[in-house]
């Protein structure tokens, strides 16, 4: 788990100062406006002259085009988040590590999907993002696994071990990866808050609030997807504990009626933040714009916390979100330009602060 005792105070001053410097190097609105009007070659050139220079040059011999951009983005993301873990001590390390385990979850799902679909080992390796707690050696062992059961056995001692072992029977029975993927995602979200100290300072309380909001948004998004798909699925299978918006009983009741679900959100603690997004949702046929609004709301919330509590975990968390968003935005621009999508349409799809 953490390399230092989580009960110790963290080195917030040092890490937040480094994070402020890193954050200033993130692309801004002007950069994105330039990027959406460039071709993929120009985007690659632009990246070679930016923060991503090292990764672009290193991967240039192996990949090309938009794949090169995507792999360089992933590698740069991994480098930054690895630095965060390297700099952090004590409780701060614990908080950051908890959040960055989303990349362990990502890597685990990528390996499971690779093994399940019989993908080449190199292809799976390329898709991994070495930004979580799993060491490079663990990731290598995972990519060498020959079966889903072997992957589950390899992560037996991690936080994912118990949930995956419990889900293996369902996987073997149904022949589908869904139980395993759900177990991985659920474990990540449930370990975000579990075990945090009860006597929290204000910044930690807000950190928890932020994580609860993320869990609530995930539950809300999934409830709406289930409501719209018409699938006969047990909503509790996708319910994540730890949020404040929905209880399992609420979810079961509301998933059958989208109007009631929207009304429930309107009258909840997120009513003000999501009011506009809910209006869009009621008019639109797709959930995409709503998901877009949820992402923007979360990003804004993290940013507000970071400004209010500059010497806490909040600026670090806000940087993690902003960096992830930057990577998502650049990849979106590159892929969308490759597909010949209209620059204005791409710009509308980007989530920017």
């Amino acid at each position, binding site marked *: 788990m953490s390399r230092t005792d989580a009960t110790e105070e963290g080195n917030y001053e040092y890490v937040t100062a480094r994070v402020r410097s890193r954050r200033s190097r993130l692309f801004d609105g002007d950069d994105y406006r330039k990027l959406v009007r460039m071709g993929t070659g120009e985007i690659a050139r632009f990246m070679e002259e930016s923060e991503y220079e090292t990764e672009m040059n290193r991967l240039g011999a192996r990949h090309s085009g938009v794949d090169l951009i995507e792999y360089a983005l992933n590698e740069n993301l991994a480098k930054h988040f690895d630095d965060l873990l390297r700099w952090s001590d004590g409780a701060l390390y614990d908080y950051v590590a908890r959040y960055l385990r989303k990349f362990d979850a990502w890597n685990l799902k990528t390996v499971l999907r690779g093994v399940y679909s019989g993908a080449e080992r190199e292809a799976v390796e390329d898709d991994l993002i070495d930004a979580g707690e799993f060491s490079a050696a663990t990731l290598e062992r995972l990519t060498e696994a020959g079966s889903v059961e072997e992957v589950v056995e390899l992560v037996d001692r991690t936080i994912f071990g118990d949930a995956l072992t419990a889900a293996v029977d369902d996987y073997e029975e149904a022949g589908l990866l869904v139980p395993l993927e759900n177990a991985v995602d659920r474990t990540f979200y449930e370990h975000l808050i579990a075990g945090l100290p009860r006597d929290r300072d204000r910044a930690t309380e807000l950190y928890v609030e932020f994580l609860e909001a993320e869990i609530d948004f995930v539950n809300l998004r999934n409830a709406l997807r289930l409501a719209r798909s*018409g699938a006969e699925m047990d909503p509790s299978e996708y319910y994540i504990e730890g949020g404040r918006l929905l209880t399992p009983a609420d979810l079961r009741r509301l998933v059958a009626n989208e109007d009631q679900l929207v009304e429930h959100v309107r009258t909840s603690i997120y009513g003000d933040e999501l009011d506009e997004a809910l209006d869009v949702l009621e008019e639109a046929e797709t959930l995409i714009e709503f998901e877009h609004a949820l992402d923007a709301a979360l990003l804004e919330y993290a940013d507000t916390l970071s400004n209010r509590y500059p010497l806490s975990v909040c600026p670090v968390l806000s940087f993690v979100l902003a960096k992830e968003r930057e990577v998502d935005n650049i990849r979106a621009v590159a892929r*969308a330009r490759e597909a010949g999508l209209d620059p204005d349409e791409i710009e509308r799809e980007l989530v920017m602060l």
Partner: protein
Amino acid sequence: MADDVKPTRKELMQIEERIELSERGHDTLEQKRDGLIMEFMDILDEAKDVRSDLDDKYEEAQRAINMARALDGDVAVRGAAAALKEHPEITTESKSVMGVYIPQIDSTKVRKNLDQRGYGVLGTSARIDEAADAYEELVDQIILAAEVETAMKKMIEEIETTNRRVNALEFKLLPELRENKEYIEQKLEEQEREEIFRMKKVKDKKEAEEDAEAAAKEEEDEEVVPADD
């Protein structure tokens, strides 16, 4: 004209029967061809609509997957696609339209619910759902297009075959038969004329012989009369 045509009455009757049969066949085939063309025009209209919808659905599916690849990442989209366990199944039957067997394609497991797609709901987004939806609609449309366009091809083949038969009857077989009939009729008439002429000749010859015989007899009678002394 065929070389082996025998100018006999029997042959003439046979040819007349064949002409009658061929004319009836020609009319039936013409009606069939016209019917097929009308059916084909209906299928063509349907095929045009289906193809136009197919183009729209392809554009929409491409847009949806490009957006999903752009915003969720290529890896996430490939991962979700790789999770699919149950592939669509297609069964084909055939039905007869004016004697042409056209396929009827039934598909199962093309349109799937969220729980049947194999990927987890927690780790994916609505964009991937939308791309999957768009591709399922596209596959359905491709199956419909395959059915309609195959039916169209079969109808075209049948129309061509029928048209070749109509043309063969109209421009080859019937003219030949009519020519043969005319030839036989001419030959028979000629034979009749020859027969009449021959009979006439025989009759004239017989009459001439009879006249000669009568004259000889008369002459003989005159010589036998005795003298009065």
